[in-house]
C-alpha cells in the first residue's frame, strides 16, 4: 500500500544571521558554507520525507515546503500575509551567541500567529559549535521555551548536529496538530 501524501508548509522565523538558510541547506542538501549571504525575498525549498502520522500510526509521505524569509524585522509585519498565509508550522531559530535572538522569537511568533493562527512551533538554538562564545544557557532557553509550550533543541548547521532531528520533530508536531 502506498503512503498517504501530506503537504506541509513550514516557515523559518528569526533574526538576521541566526542561520535560517544554513539550516535548510544542511537539512536538504547536506551542505554548509561559512560565508554569509543575506537572504533577499523568499526562498522555497522542498523535501520529501517519510514519517508516521502520530494520530493514526500510519506511514505518510510528507512533502515539506520550507519557506526561508528575510530576517528583517522592519518588513516583517508588512510582508506577514505574503510569508505566512497557510503556514502549518514554524521553526524559530535563535543564535547561541546572541542572547537577544531568543527574545525576538516572541515578535516573530506574534506576527505569524496573526496570519496563520496558533500553529506548532519548534525552536532551535543554532550555532552549537560556537560553545565558547555562548551567550545563552540551557536553563534560560528551557524557561523561555517551556513557558510558551515550544519544544526546543540545539543545532549546528555547520556540523549538522541536531539539524535533521529538529526538522523531523517539527514535522511530527505539525502532523499531530492536524485536524
Amino acid at each position, binding site marked *: 500500500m502506498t503512503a498517504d501524501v501530506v*503537504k506541509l*508548509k513550514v516557515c523559518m522565523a528569526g533574526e*538576521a*544571521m541566526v542561520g535560517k538558510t544554513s539550516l535548510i541547506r544542511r537539512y536538504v542538501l547536506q551542505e554548509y558554507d561559512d560565508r*554569509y549571504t*543575506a537572504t*533577499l*525575498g*523568499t*526562498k*522555497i525549498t522542498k523535501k520529501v520525507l517519510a514519517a508516521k502520522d502520530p494520530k493514526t500510526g500510519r506511514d505518510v509521505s510528507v512533502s515539506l515546503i520550507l*519557506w526561508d524569509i*528575510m*530576517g*528583517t524585522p*522592519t*518588513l516583517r509585519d*508588512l*510582508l506577514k*500575509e*505574503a*510569508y505566512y*498565509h*497557510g503556514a502549518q508550522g514554524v521553526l524559530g531559530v535563535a543564535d547561541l551567541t546572541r542572547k537577544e535572538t531568543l527574545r525576538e522569537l516572541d515578535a516573530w511568533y506574534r506576527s505569524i500567529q496573526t496570519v496563520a493562527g496558533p500553529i506548532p512551533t519548534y525552536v532551535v538554538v543554532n550555532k552549537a559549535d560556537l560553545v565558547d562564545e555562548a551567550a545563552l544557557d540551557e536553563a534560560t532557553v528551557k524557561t523561555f521555551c517551556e513557558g510558551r509550550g515550544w519544544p526546543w533543541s540545539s543545532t549546528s548547521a555547520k556540523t549538522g548536529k541536531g539539524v535533521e532531528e529538529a526538522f523531523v520533530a517539527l514535522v511530527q508536531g505539525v502532523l499531530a496538530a492536524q485536524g
Partner: protein
Amino acid sequence: MRRPETSVLVNEALRRNGDDPDALFVLAALRVQDGHPEEGLKILDHVLVIDPDYPGAWFFKEKIHRMRGEAWAADSARRQGEAVDG
C-alpha cells in the same frame, strides 16, 4: 559582522540583474513602507510578469490593494495567491 542594509542589498542585486525577482519583491515592499503603495504595486506587478508564481507575491499584492481600498482587485489577487501558494 552585521547584515547589510536591505536597501543596499536590493540595489546591489538590481545592478547585477535589473529583473532579479527577489530584489524587486523587496524593493516593492520598501516602496510601500516608505508610503508609496502605487509604486510598490507597479514593481510587484513587474515581479509577477517575471515570475507569476513568485512565493507570497499575490498575497502581498492583495494587501497593497486593500491598503488602497481596492476590494475587487484585492479579492482577485487573493484568488491567484490561493491558486499559486495554496
